[in-house]
Protein backbone atom coordinates (compact mmCIF):
# COMPACT_ATOMS: atom_id res chain seq x y z
CA UNK A 1 0.00 0.00 0.00
CA UNK A 2 1.38 3.42 -0.97
CA UNK A 3 1.77 5.48 2.17
CA UNK A 4 -0.38 8.57 2.32
CA UNK A 5 1.10 11.72 3.73
CA UNK A 6 -0.37 13.16 6.87
CA UNK A 7 -1.83 15.97 4.79
CA UNK A 8 -3.50 13.50 2.45
CA UNK A 9 -4.97 11.67 5.42
CA UNK A 10 -6.28 14.94 6.82
CA UNK A 11 -7.91 15.71 3.49
CA UNK A 12 -9.48 12.26 3.51
CA UNK A 13 -10.99 12.94 6.92
CA UNK A 14 -12.66 16.12 5.69
CA UNK A 15 -13.94 14.39 2.55
CA UNK A 16 -15.29 11.52 4.65
CA UNK A 17 -17.09 13.96 6.93
CA UNK A 18 -18.65 15.64 3.91
CA UNK A 19 -19.83 12.29 2.60
CA UNK A 20 -21.22 11.19 5.95
CA UNK A 21 -23.32 14.36 6.09
CA UNK A 22 -24.30 14.09 2.44
CA UNK A 23 -25.62 10.54 2.62
CA UNK A 24 -27.32 10.97 6.00
CA UNK A 25 -29.00 14.07 4.63
CA UNK A 26 -30.04 12.12 1.53
CA UNK A 27 -31.39 9.14 3.49
CA UNK A 28 -32.98 11.38 6.14
CA UNK A 29 -31.61 8.93 8.70
CA UNK A 30 -28.35 8.00 10.32
CA UNK A 31 -26.12 8.21 13.35
CA UNK A 32 -24.44 11.50 12.68
CA UNK A 33 -22.62 12.41 15.89
CA UNK A 34 -20.95 9.05 16.44
CA UNK A 35 -19.98 8.71 12.77
CA UNK A 36 -18.19 12.04 12.97
CA UNK A 37 -16.43 11.07 16.21
CA UNK A 38 -15.00 7.81 14.85
CA UNK A 39 -14.19 8.67 11.25
CA UNK A 40 -10.59 9.75 11.86
CA UNK A 41 -9.97 6.39 13.51
CA UNK A 42 -11.47 4.58 10.50
CA UNK A 43 -9.42 6.76 8.17
CA UNK A 44 -6.15 5.78 9.85
CA UNK A 45 -7.19 2.14 10.08
CA UNK A 46 -8.19 1.74 6.43
CA UNK A 47 -5.57 4.03 4.90
CA UNK A 48 -2.58 3.27 7.12
CA UNK A 49 -3.00 0.21 9.35
CA UNK A 50 -5.09 -2.56 7.83
CA UNK A 51 -3.81 -4.69 4.96
CA UNK A 52 -7.36 -4.79 3.60
CA UNK A 53 -8.81 -3.74 0.28
CA UNK A 54 -11.22 -5.07 -2.31
CA UNK A 55 -8.34 -6.93 -3.96
CA UNK A 56 -7.59 -9.15 -0.96
CA UNK A 57 -10.89 -9.24 0.88
CA UNK A 58 -11.14 -13.00 0.37
CA UNK A 59 -7.62 -13.62 1.66
CA UNK A 60 -7.48 -15.56 4.94
CA UNK A 61 -4.49 -13.43 5.89
CA UNK A 62 -6.22 -10.06 5.68
CA UNK A 63 -6.46 -7.95 8.82
CA UNK A 64 -9.98 -7.82 10.20
CA UNK A 65 -11.93 -4.76 11.28
CA UNK A 66 -15.16 -5.42 13.16
CA UNK A 67 -17.27 -2.44 14.09
CA UNK A 68 -18.96 -3.14 17.38
CA UNK A 69 -20.68 0.26 17.49
CA UNK A 70 -22.58 -0.72 14.37
CA UNK A 71 -24.96 2.22 14.48
CA UNK A 72 -22.31 4.56 13.08
CA UNK A 73 -22.27 2.53 9.89
CA UNK A 74 -22.29 5.69 7.76
CA UNK A 75 -18.64 6.32 8.64
CA UNK A 76 -17.80 2.75 7.65
CA UNK A 77 -19.76 2.88 4.38
CA UNK A 78 -18.10 6.12 3.34
CA UNK A 79 -14.62 4.73 3.98
CA UNK A 80 -15.36 1.39 2.29
CA UNK A 81 -16.68 3.22 -0.78
CA UNK A 82 -13.50 5.30 -0.92
CA UNK A 83 -11.43 2.11 -0.71
CA UNK A 84 -13.27 0.85 -3.79
CA UNK A 85 -15.32 -1.91 -2.18
CA UNK A 86 -18.40 -0.59 -4.02
CA UNK A 87 -19.33 2.48 -6.07
CA UNK A 88 -19.97 5.50 -3.88
CA UNK A 89 -23.25 6.10 -5.72
CA UNK A 90 -24.60 2.93 -4.04
CA UNK A 91 -24.91 5.05 -0.92
CA UNK A 92 -27.68 7.04 -2.56
CA UNK A 93 -29.92 4.05 -1.80
CA UNK A 94 -29.12 4.12 1.92
CA UNK A 95 -32.09 2.96 4.05
CA UNK A 96 -34.35 2.48 1.02
CA UNK A 97 -36.50 -0.52 0.19
CA UNK A 98 -34.30 -3.49 -0.80
CA UNK A 99 -31.04 -1.57 -0.34
CA UNK A 100 -28.28 -3.45 1.47
CA UNK A 101 -27.01 -0.13 2.76
CA UNK A 102 -29.12 -0.19 5.91
CA UNK A 103 -28.62 1.46 9.28
CA UNK A 104 -26.09 -1.09 10.51
CA UNK A 105 -23.24 -3.07 8.95
CA UNK A 106 -24.23 -6.25 7.10
CA UNK A 107 -22.14 -8.68 5.13
CA UNK A 108 -24.38 -8.09 2.13
CA UNK A 109 -22.17 -5.03 1.69
CA UNK A 110 -18.74 -5.77 0.26
CA UNK A 111 -16.02 -5.06 2.80
CA UNK A 112 -18.10 -5.60 5.92
CA UNK A 113 -16.78 -8.39 8.15
CA UNK A 114 -19.68 -8.97 10.54
CA UNK A 115 -23.34 -8.06 11.00
CA UNK A 116 -23.38 -5.78 14.00
CA UNK A 117 -25.84 -3.24 15.43
CA UNK A 118 -26.81 -4.85 18.68
CA UNK A 119 -24.14 -3.40 20.95
CA UNK A 120 -21.75 -5.59 22.89
CA UNK A 121 -20.98 -8.18 20.21
CA UNK A 122 -17.89 -6.88 18.42
CA UNK A 123 -15.34 -7.68 21.08
CA UNK A 124 -16.34 -11.35 21.43
CA UNK A 125 -16.39 -11.74 17.64
CA UNK A 126 -12.95 -10.15 17.49
CA UNK A 127 -11.58 -12.38 20.23
CA UNK A 128 -12.69 -15.46 18.30
CA UNK A 129 -11.20 -14.12 15.08
CA UNK A 130 -7.90 -13.27 16.80
CA UNK A 131 -7.81 -16.62 18.58
CA UNK A 132 -8.13 -18.42 15.24
CA UNK A 133 -5.05 -16.56 13.97
CA UNK A 134 -3.09 -17.86 16.94
CA UNK A 135 -4.39 -21.40 16.39
CA UNK A 136 -3.40 -21.36 12.72
CA UNK A 137 -0.21 -19.34 13.22
CA UNK A 138 -1.43 -16.62 10.87
CA UNK A 139 -0.15 -13.05 11.02
CA UNK A 140 -3.35 -11.11 10.58
CA UNK A 141 -4.48 -8.73 13.29
CA UNK A 142 -7.97 -7.89 14.50
CA UNK A 143 -9.32 -4.44 15.29
CA UNK A 144 -12.64 -3.54 16.79
CA UNK A 145 -14.29 -0.23 17.58
CA UNK A 146 -16.51 0.15 20.63
CA UNK A 147 -18.66 3.01 21.82
CA UNK A 148 -18.12 4.29 25.34
CA UNK A 149 -21.83 3.96 26.10
CA UNK A 150 -21.59 0.36 24.94
CA UNK A 151 -19.19 -0.66 27.72
CA UNK A 152 -21.83 -1.58 30.35
CA UNK A 153 -22.86 -4.57 28.19
CA UNK A 154 -21.51 -7.45 30.27
CA UNK A 155 -20.37 -9.37 27.21
CA UNK A 156 -17.58 -6.82 26.72
CA UNK A 157 -16.07 -7.73 30.05
CA UNK A 158 -16.45 -11.44 29.42
CA UNK A 159 -14.63 -10.99 26.11
CA UNK A 160 -11.96 -8.83 27.78
CA UNK A 161 -11.19 -11.75 30.11
CA UNK A 162 -10.96 -14.24 27.26
CA UNK A 163 -8.68 -11.91 25.30
CA UNK A 164 -6.12 -11.63 28.06
CA UNK A 165 -6.49 -15.26 29.08
CA UNK A 166 -5.47 -16.33 25.57
CA UNK A 167 -2.78 -13.61 25.39
CA UNK A 168 -4.26 -12.13 22.21
CA UNK A 169 -1.64 -9.54 21.40
CA UNK A 170 -2.89 -9.61 17.81
CA UNK A 171 -6.09 -7.93 19.01
CA UNK A 172 -6.67 -4.20 19.36
CA UNK A 173 -9.86 -2.65 20.70
CA UNK A 174 -10.46 1.05 20.22
CA UNK A 175 -12.98 2.90 22.37
CA UNK A 176 -14.54 5.92 20.70
CA UNK A 177 -14.58 7.88 23.94
CA UNK A 178 -16.85 10.77 22.97
CA UNK A 179 -18.36 10.87 26.49
CA UNK A 180 -21.95 10.88 25.22
CA UNK A 181 -24.61 8.30 24.48
CA UNK A 182 -28.35 8.76 23.75
CA UNK A 183 -29.86 9.80 27.09
CA UNK A 184 -27.02 11.90 28.47
CA UNK A 185 -23.28 11.75 29.12
CA UNK A 186 -21.84 8.31 29.84
CA UNK A 187 -20.87 9.65 33.27
CA UNK A 188 -24.52 10.37 34.10
CA UNK A 189 -25.96 7.21 32.55
CA UNK A 190 -23.52 4.63 33.89
CA UNK A 191 -20.12 5.84 34.92
CA UNK A 192 -17.48 3.44 33.61
CA UNK A 193 -14.47 5.49 34.71
CA UNK A 194 -11.65 4.75 35.14
CA UNK A 195 -11.74 2.71 31.93
CA UNK A 196 -7.97 2.30 31.74
CA UNK A 197 -7.61 0.84 35.24
CA UNK A 198 -10.45 -1.56 34.61
CA UNK A 199 -8.94 -2.93 31.41
CA UNK A 200 -5.44 -3.02 32.85
CA UNK A 201 -6.69 -5.08 35.76
CA UNK A 202 -8.29 -7.37 33.18
CA UNK A 203 -4.85 -7.96 31.67
CA UNK A 204 -4.86 -5.45 28.80
CA UNK A 205 -2.24 -2.87 27.83
CA UNK A 206 -3.86 0.55 27.49
CA UNK A 207 -3.02 3.83 25.75
CA UNK A 208 -4.87 7.13 25.55
CA UNK A 209 -4.84 9.16 22.34
CA UNK A 210 -6.57 12.16 20.86
CA UNK A 211 -8.89 10.32 18.50
CA UNK A 212 -8.87 13.18 16.00
CA UNK A 213 -5.08 13.48 15.83
CA UNK A 214 -3.92 11.46 12.83
CA UNK A 215 -0.31 11.45 14.05
CA UNK A 216 -1.20 10.17 17.51
CA UNK A 217 -3.43 7.48 16.05
CA UNK A 218 -0.69 6.29 13.68
CA UNK A 219 1.81 6.19 16.51
CA UNK A 220 -0.48 4.17 18.74
CA UNK A 221 -1.26 1.62 16.02
CA UNK A 222 2.45 1.38 15.17
CA UNK A 223 3.16 0.47 18.78
CA UNK A 224 0.79 -2.49 18.78
CA UNK A 225 1.04 -4.74 20.71
CA UNK A 226 1.68 -2.29 23.49
CA UNK A 227 2.97 -5.20 25.55
CA UNK A 228 3.90 -8.64 24.25
CA UNK A 229 1.34 -11.25 25.22
CA UNK A 230 -1.41 -8.72 26.01
CA UNK A 231 -4.35 -7.41 24.01
CA UNK A 232 -4.12 -3.66 23.28
CA UNK A 233 -6.73 -1.06 24.10
CA UNK A 234 -6.72 2.43 22.63
CA UNK A 235 -8.92 4.89 24.47
CA UNK A 236 -9.50 7.47 21.76
CA UNK A 237 -10.68 10.75 23.23
CA UNK A 238 -13.09 12.17 20.70
CA UNK A 239 -15.81 14.75 20.26
CA UNK A 240 -19.28 13.61 19.24
CA UNK A 241 -20.24 15.54 16.11
CA UNK A 242 -16.59 16.50 15.48
CA UNK A 243 -16.05 18.93 12.63
CA UNK A 244 -19.50 20.51 12.48
CA UNK A 245 -19.48 23.16 15.18
CA UNK A 246 -23.21 23.18 15.86
CA UNK A 247 -23.16 19.40 16.32
CA UNK A 248 -20.12 19.11 18.56
CA UNK A 249 -20.95 17.72 22.01
CA UNK A 250 -24.68 18.21 21.42
CA UNK A 251 -26.71 15.21 22.52
CA UNK A 252 -29.44 15.37 19.90
CA UNK A 253 -26.99 14.82 17.06
CA UNK A 254 -26.63 11.19 18.14
CA UNK A 255 -29.12 10.44 15.36
CA UNK A 256 -30.04 13.95 14.26
CA UNK A 257 -30.50 14.63 10.55
CA UNK A 258 -29.60 18.12 9.30
CA UNK A 259 -32.21 20.40 7.76
CA UNK A 260 -31.50 22.03 4.40
CA UNK A 261 -29.91 25.09 6.04
CA UNK A 262 -27.96 23.00 8.49
CA UNK A 263 -26.75 20.82 5.64
CA UNK A 264 -25.49 23.86 3.74
CA UNK A 265 -23.78 25.23 6.85
CA UNK A 266 -22.07 21.91 7.54
CA UNK A 267 -20.77 21.63 3.98
CA UNK A 268 -19.52 25.19 4.05
CA UNK A 269 -17.68 24.65 7.31
CA UNK A 270 -16.01 21.51 5.95
CA UNK A 271 -15.10 23.21 2.67
CA UNK A 272 -13.41 25.98 4.63
CA UNK A 273 -11.33 23.44 6.55
CA UNK A 274 -10.44 21.65 3.31
CA UNK A 275 -9.21 24.95 1.83
CA UNK A 276 -6.68 25.29 4.63
CA UNK A 277 -5.17 21.84 4.06
Amino acid at each position, binding site marked *: MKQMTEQELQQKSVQYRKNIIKYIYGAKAGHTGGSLSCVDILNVLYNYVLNVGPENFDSPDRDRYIQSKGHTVEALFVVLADKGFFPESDLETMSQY*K*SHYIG*HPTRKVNGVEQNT*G*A*LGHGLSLSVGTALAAKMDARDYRVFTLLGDGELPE*GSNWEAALTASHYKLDNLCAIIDHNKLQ*ITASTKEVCDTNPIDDKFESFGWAVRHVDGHDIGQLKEAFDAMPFEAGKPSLIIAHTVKGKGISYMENVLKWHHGVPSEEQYAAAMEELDQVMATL
Partner: protein
Amino acid sequence: MGAIIDKEIETGKANLEVFSSTLQELAATDRDIVAVTSDSRGSGKLVPFGQKFPKQIVEIGIAEQNLVGVAAGLASVGKKVFAVSPACFLTARALEQIKNDVAYSDNPVKLIGISAGVSYGALGTTHHSLHDFAVLRAINNIIIVAPADNFETEQAIAQAAASEQPFYIRFGKKPMPLLQPRSESSFEFGKGRVIKEGDDITFIATGETVYPALQAAAKLEKEQGISATVISMHTIKPLDHDLLTKVAATGKPILTVEEHMVYGGLGEACASYLIQNGHHNRFKIMGIPDEYTVTGSQNDIFNHYGLTESGIAAEAAKLLEK
Protein backbone atom coordinates in the same frame (compact mmCIF):
# COMPACT_ATOMS: atom_id res chain seq x y z
CA MET B 1 -70.95 -3.88 17.37
CA GLY B 2 -69.64 -1.57 14.70
CA ALA B 3 -66.09 -0.83 13.74
CA ILE B 4 -65.52 2.84 13.23
CA ILE B 5 -63.43 2.39 10.15
CA ASP B 6 -66.01 3.91 7.82
CA LYS B 7 -67.15 6.45 10.38
CA GLU B 8 -65.01 8.88 12.27
CA ILE B 9 -61.53 7.46 12.30
CA GLU B 10 -59.75 8.85 15.28
CA THR B 11 -56.26 9.34 13.97
CA GLY B 12 -54.77 8.05 17.15
CA LYS B 13 -51.35 8.38 18.69
CA ALA B 14 -48.50 5.94 18.71
CA ASN B 15 -49.14 3.24 21.32
CA LEU B 16 -45.72 4.17 22.66
CA GLU B 17 -47.01 7.68 23.50
CA VAL B 18 -50.06 6.23 25.22
CA PHE B 19 -47.88 3.85 27.22
CA SER B 20 -45.83 6.81 28.45
CA SER B 21 -48.79 8.98 29.43
CA THR B 22 -50.56 6.07 31.12
CA LEU B 23 -47.46 5.23 33.12
CA GLN B 24 -47.17 8.86 34.22
CA GLU B 25 -50.76 8.85 35.44
CA LEU B 26 -50.13 5.68 37.42
CA ALA B 27 -46.85 6.92 38.87
CA ALA B 28 -48.45 10.14 40.12
CA THR B 29 -50.60 8.26 42.60
CA ASP B 30 -48.47 5.19 43.23
CA ARG B 31 -44.92 5.79 44.42
CA ASP B 32 -44.09 2.11 43.94
CA ILE B 33 -44.30 2.42 40.16
CA VAL B 34 -40.73 2.37 38.84
CA ALA B 35 -39.50 2.59 35.26
CA VAL B 36 -36.18 0.92 34.53
CA THR B 37 -34.39 1.89 31.33
CA SER B 38 -31.26 0.97 29.39
CA ASP B 39 -30.37 4.26 27.65
CA SER B 40 -33.89 3.83 26.27
CA ARG B 41 -35.86 6.60 27.95
CA GLY B 42 -35.90 8.70 24.78
CA SER B 43 -37.02 5.84 22.55
CA GLY B 44 -39.51 4.83 25.26
CA LYS B 45 -40.93 8.40 25.37
CA LEU B 46 -40.10 8.48 29.06
CA VAL B 47 -38.17 11.76 29.16
CA PRO B 48 -41.18 13.58 30.73
CA PHE B 49 -41.63 10.67 33.15
CA GLY B 50 -38.01 11.08 34.25
CA GLN B 51 -38.48 14.82 34.73
CA LYS B 52 -41.66 14.46 36.77
CA PHE B 53 -40.66 11.40 38.80
CA PRO B 54 -36.88 11.40 39.06
CA LYS B 55 -37.08 9.10 42.08
CA GLN B 56 -39.16 6.56 40.19
CA ILE B 57 -36.82 5.93 37.28
CA VAL B 58 -33.70 3.81 37.34
CA GLU B 59 -31.20 4.18 34.52
CA ILE B 60 -29.08 1.07 33.96
CA GLY B 61 -27.10 2.03 30.89
CA ILE B 62 -26.74 -0.15 27.82
CA ALA B 63 -26.98 -3.51 29.57
CA GLU B 64 -30.27 -5.27 28.92
CA GLN B 65 -29.48 -8.46 30.82
CA ASN B 66 -28.63 -6.38 33.85
CA LEU B 67 -31.80 -4.32 33.27
CA VAL B 68 -34.02 -7.38 33.57
CA GLY B 69 -32.14 -8.84 36.53
CA VAL B 70 -32.27 -5.55 38.43
CA ALA B 71 -35.95 -5.15 37.55
CA ALA B 72 -36.66 -8.61 38.96
CA GLY B 73 -34.85 -7.70 42.17
CA LEU B 74 -36.84 -4.48 42.50
CA ALA B 75 -40.08 -6.36 41.88
CA SER B 76 -39.20 -9.00 44.47
CA VAL B 77 -39.45 -6.40 47.22
CA GLY B 78 -42.71 -4.88 46.07
CA LYS B 79 -41.82 -2.32 43.42
CA LYS B 80 -44.19 -2.23 40.46
CA VAL B 81 -41.52 -2.38 37.82
CA PHE B 82 -41.78 -1.50 34.15
CA ALA B 83 -38.58 -2.58 32.41
CA VAL B 84 -38.53 -0.60 29.18
CA SER B 85 -36.20 -1.44 26.31
CA PRO B 86 -36.40 -2.12 22.57
CA ALA B 87 -38.29 -5.40 22.10
CA CYS B 88 -35.42 -6.88 20.10
CA PHE B 89 -32.79 -6.55 22.83
CA LEU B 90 -35.16 -7.15 25.74
CA THR B 91 -36.36 -10.53 24.49
CA ALA B 92 -33.20 -11.81 22.81
CA ARG B 93 -30.29 -10.63 24.86
CA ALA B 94 -32.01 -10.81 28.24
CA LEU B 95 -33.94 -14.00 27.56
CA GLU B 96 -32.32 -16.01 30.33
CA GLN B 97 -33.04 -13.26 32.85
CA ILE B 98 -36.66 -13.26 31.67
CA LYS B 99 -36.88 -17.04 31.96
CA ASN B 100 -35.20 -17.44 35.36
CA ASP B 101 -35.36 -14.14 37.21
CA VAL B 102 -38.81 -13.01 36.08
CA ALA B 103 -40.95 -15.98 35.01
CA TYR B 104 -39.49 -18.94 36.92
CA SER B 105 -38.83 -16.96 40.11
CA ASP B 106 -42.24 -15.33 39.72
CA ASN B 107 -41.10 -11.74 40.07
CA PRO B 108 -43.92 -9.71 38.55
CA VAL B 109 -41.91 -7.45 36.24
CA LYS B 110 -43.77 -5.76 33.39
CA LEU B 111 -41.41 -6.06 30.45
CA ILE B 112 -42.19 -3.37 27.91
CA GLY B 113 -40.86 -4.14 24.43
CA ILE B 114 -40.77 -0.88 22.51
CA SER B 115 -40.54 -0.48 18.72
CA ALA B 116 -41.48 -4.13 18.34
CA GLY B 117 -41.74 -6.23 15.21
CA VAL B 118 -40.19 -4.35 12.31
CA SER B 119 -40.90 -0.87 13.70
CA TYR B 120 -37.21 -0.03 13.37
CA GLY B 121 -37.45 -0.64 9.62
CA ALA B 122 -34.18 0.08 7.87
CA LEU B 123 -32.11 -0.39 11.02
CA GLY B 124 -32.33 -4.05 10.03
CA THR B 125 -32.56 -7.49 11.57
CA THR B 126 -30.55 -6.70 14.71
CA HIS B 127 -33.34 -4.29 15.61
CA HIS B 128 -36.34 -6.41 14.64
CA SER B 129 -38.22 -8.61 17.07
CA LEU B 130 -39.82 -11.32 14.99
CA HIS B 131 -39.01 -14.02 17.52
CA ASP B 132 -40.44 -12.61 20.74
CA PHE B 133 -43.84 -14.32 20.79
CA ALA B 134 -42.20 -17.62 19.92
CA VAL B 135 -39.50 -17.61 22.58
CA LEU B 136 -41.73 -16.24 25.32
CA ARG B 137 -44.57 -18.65 24.51
CA ALA B 138 -42.14 -21.43 25.34
CA ILE B 139 -41.61 -20.05 28.84
CA ASN B 140 -44.06 -20.76 31.63
CA ASN B 141 -45.55 -17.93 33.69
CA ILE B 142 -45.49 -14.85 31.52
CA ILE B 143 -48.45 -13.12 29.91
CA ILE B 144 -47.75 -11.95 26.36
CA VAL B 145 -49.65 -8.96 25.01
CA ALA B 146 -49.56 -6.94 21.78
CA PRO B 147 -52.07 -4.07 22.03
CA ALA B 148 -53.48 -2.91 18.72
CA ASP B 149 -54.74 0.57 19.45
CA ASN B 150 -54.50 3.32 22.07
CA PHE B 151 -57.41 1.92 24.05
CA GLU B 152 -55.86 -1.52 24.35
CA THR B 153 -52.52 0.02 25.25
CA GLU B 154 -53.80 2.16 28.11
CA GLN B 155 -55.88 -0.74 29.43
CA ALA B 156 -53.01 -3.21 29.17
CA ILE B 157 -50.61 -0.91 31.01
CA ALA B 158 -53.05 0.00 33.77
CA GLN B 159 -54.29 -3.57 34.30
CA ALA B 160 -50.76 -5.02 34.21
CA ALA B 161 -49.65 -2.49 36.84
CA ALA B 162 -52.36 -3.81 39.13
CA SER B 163 -51.48 -7.45 38.50
CA GLU B 164 -49.11 -9.68 40.46
CA GLN B 165 -48.00 -11.58 37.37
CA PRO B 166 -45.07 -11.20 34.99
CA PHE B 167 -45.98 -9.59 31.67
CA TYR B 168 -44.43 -8.88 28.30
CA ILE B 169 -46.22 -6.09 26.45
CA ARG B 170 -44.96 -5.01 23.03
CA PHE B 171 -45.97 -2.30 20.61
CA GLY B 172 -44.70 -0.05 17.87
CA LYS B 173 -44.24 3.65 17.35
CA LYS B 174 -46.58 4.29 14.45
CA PRO B 175 -49.81 6.24 15.17
CA MET B 176 -52.67 3.73 15.47
CA PRO B 177 -56.31 4.64 14.82
CA LEU B 178 -58.89 3.60 17.37
CA LEU B 179 -60.54 0.34 16.26
CA GLN B 180 -63.88 0.99 17.96
CA PRO B 181 -65.54 3.81 19.82
CA ARG B 182 -64.45 3.65 23.45
CA SER B 183 -68.06 3.32 24.58
CA GLU B 184 -68.28 -0.02 22.77
CA SER B 185 -64.89 -1.27 23.90
CA SER B 186 -63.79 -3.48 26.72
CA PHE B 187 -60.47 -5.07 27.50
CA GLU B 188 -59.57 -8.12 29.49
CA PHE B 189 -56.31 -10.08 29.25
CA GLY B 190 -56.86 -13.44 27.59
CA LYS B 191 -60.07 -12.34 25.88
CA GLY B 192 -59.91 -11.46 22.20
CA ARG B 193 -61.82 -8.37 21.08
CA VAL B 194 -64.28 -8.86 18.27
CA ILE B 195 -63.96 -5.62 16.34
CA LYS B 196 -66.33 -6.49 13.54
CA GLU B 197 -68.66 -9.41 12.91
CA GLY B 198 -69.04 -11.11 9.54
CA ASP B 199 -70.25 -14.36 7.96
CA ASP B 200 -67.69 -15.63 5.48
CA ILE B 201 -64.25 -15.67 7.06
CA THR B 202 -62.50 -14.75 10.33
CA PHE B 203 -59.40 -12.59 10.61
CA ILE B 204 -57.46 -13.03 13.83
CA ALA B 205 -54.78 -10.37 14.08
CA THR B 206 -52.65 -8.81 16.77
CA GLY B 207 -50.81 -5.55 17.41
CA GLU B 208 -50.27 -3.23 14.48
CA THR B 209 -51.67 -5.72 11.97
CA VAL B 210 -55.23 -5.50 13.33
CA TYR B 211 -55.84 -2.21 11.58
CA PRO B 212 -54.86 -3.42 8.07
CA ALA B 213 -56.96 -6.56 8.72
CA LEU B 214 -59.92 -4.31 9.47
CA GLN B 215 -59.23 -2.30 6.32
CA ALA B 216 -59.04 -5.53 4.31
CA ALA B 217 -62.42 -6.58 5.72
CA ALA B 218 -63.95 -3.29 4.59
CA LYS B 219 -62.43 -3.65 1.13
CA LEU B 220 -63.71 -7.22 0.70
CA GLU B 221 -67.16 -6.19 1.80
CA LYS B 222 -67.29 -3.29 -0.61
CA GLU B 223 -65.69 -4.90 -3.64
CA GLN B 224 -66.69 -8.56 -3.38
CA GLY B 225 -69.54 -8.73 -0.89
CA ILE B 226 -67.41 -10.91 1.37
CA SER B 227 -68.01 -10.25 5.05
CA ALA B 228 -65.29 -10.96 7.59
CA THR B 229 -65.17 -11.17 11.35
CA VAL B 230 -62.16 -9.25 12.66
CA ILE B 231 -60.64 -10.10 16.03
CA SER B 232 -57.90 -8.25 17.87
CA MET B 233 -56.16 -11.09 19.70
CA HIS B 234 -54.14 -8.79 21.92
CA THR B 235 -53.20 -11.55 24.34
CA ILE B 236 -51.03 -14.14 22.66
CA LYS B 237 -50.74 -16.13 25.87
CA PRO B 238 -52.98 -17.21 27.50
CA LEU B 239 -54.86 -17.55 24.23
CA ASP B 240 -58.63 -17.07 24.12
CA HIS B 241 -59.65 -20.70 23.49
CA ASP B 242 -63.36 -19.99 23.94
CA LEU B 243 -63.36 -17.40 21.18
CA LEU B 244 -61.32 -19.69 18.91
CA THR B 245 -63.80 -22.51 19.47
CA LYS B 246 -66.66 -20.17 18.64
CA VAL B 247 -65.20 -18.94 15.36
CA ALA B 248 -64.07 -22.43 14.36
CA ALA B 249 -67.59 -23.75 14.92
CA THR B 250 -68.85 -21.59 12.05
CA GLY B 251 -66.79 -23.79 9.75
CA LYS B 252 -65.56 -20.71 7.90
CA PRO B 253 -61.90 -20.15 6.99
CA ILE B 254 -59.56 -18.49 9.47
CA LEU B 255 -56.74 -16.12 8.51
CA THR B 256 -54.25 -15.00 11.14
CA VAL B 257 -52.07 -11.90 10.78
CA GLU B 258 -49.10 -10.83 12.88
CA GLU B 259 -45.94 -8.72 12.80
CA HIS B 260 -43.83 -11.73 13.72
CA MET B 261 -42.22 -14.63 11.97
CA VAL B 262 -44.77 -17.17 10.77
CA TYR B 263 -43.22 -19.69 13.14
CA GLY B 264 -44.13 -19.82 16.80
CA GLY B 265 -46.41 -16.81 17.00
CA LEU B 266 -50.13 -16.11 17.07
CA GLY B 267 -50.91 -18.16 13.96
CA GLU B 268 -49.24 -21.35 15.13
CA ALA B 269 -50.72 -20.90 18.61
CA CYS B 270 -54.21 -20.78 17.07
CA ALA B 271 -53.50 -23.67 14.69
CA SER B 272 -52.21 -25.84 17.49
CA TYR B 273 -55.27 -25.31 19.63
CA LEU B 274 -57.71 -25.79 16.76
CA ILE B 275 -56.24 -28.93 15.28
CA GLN B 276 -55.87 -30.60 18.66
CA ASN B 277 -59.50 -29.88 19.37
CA GLY B 278 -60.89 -31.33 16.20
CA HIS B 279 -61.35 -28.17 14.15
CA HIS B 280 -60.27 -28.37 10.54
CA ASN B 281 -61.19 -24.99 9.11
CA ARG B 282 -59.26 -23.74 6.11
CA PHE B 283 -56.41 -21.89 7.73
CA LYS B 284 -53.64 -19.52 6.72
CA ILE B 285 -50.93 -17.74 8.73
CA MET B 286 -49.75 -14.34 7.49
CA GLY B 287 -46.60 -12.86 8.95
CA ILE B 288 -42.94 -12.48 8.09
CA PRO B 289 -41.61 -15.59 6.34
CA ASP B 290 -38.51 -17.52 7.33
CA GLU B 291 -36.02 -15.70 5.12
CA TYR B 292 -33.51 -12.85 5.21
CA THR B 293 -36.01 -10.08 5.96
CA VAL B 294 -36.37 -7.58 3.15
CA THR B 295 -34.83 -4.21 3.97
CA GLY B 296 -36.70 -0.93 4.19
CA SER B 297 -39.10 0.96 6.41
CA GLN B 298 -41.82 -0.77 8.42
CA ASN B 299 -44.27 0.18 5.65
CA ASP B 300 -41.97 -1.21 2.97
CA ILE B 301 -41.69 -4.48 4.89
CA PHE B 302 -45.46 -4.70 5.45
CA ASN B 303 -46.06 -4.02 1.76
CA HIS B 304 -43.47 -6.55 0.67
CA TYR B 305 -45.02 -9.34 2.72
CA GLY B 306 -48.62 -8.35 2.07
CA LEU B 307 -49.46 -7.26 5.62
CA THR B 308 -51.66 -4.58 4.14
CA GLU B 309 -55.26 -3.91 3.23
CA SER B 310 -54.85 -5.34 -0.27
CA GLY B 311 -52.44 -8.10 0.71
CA ILE B 312 -54.71 -9.45 3.43
CA ALA B 313 -57.79 -9.12 1.21
CA ALA B 314 -56.04 -11.08 -1.55
CA GLU B 315 -55.05 -13.90 0.82
CA ALA B 316 -58.59 -14.03 2.17
CA ALA B 317 -60.03 -14.33 -1.33
CA LYS B 318 -57.58 -17.15 -2.12
CA LEU B 319 -58.47 -18.99 1.07
CA LEU B 320 -62.17 -18.73 0.25
CA GLU B 321 -61.64 -20.14 -3.26
CA LYS B 322 -59.85 -23.30 -2.09
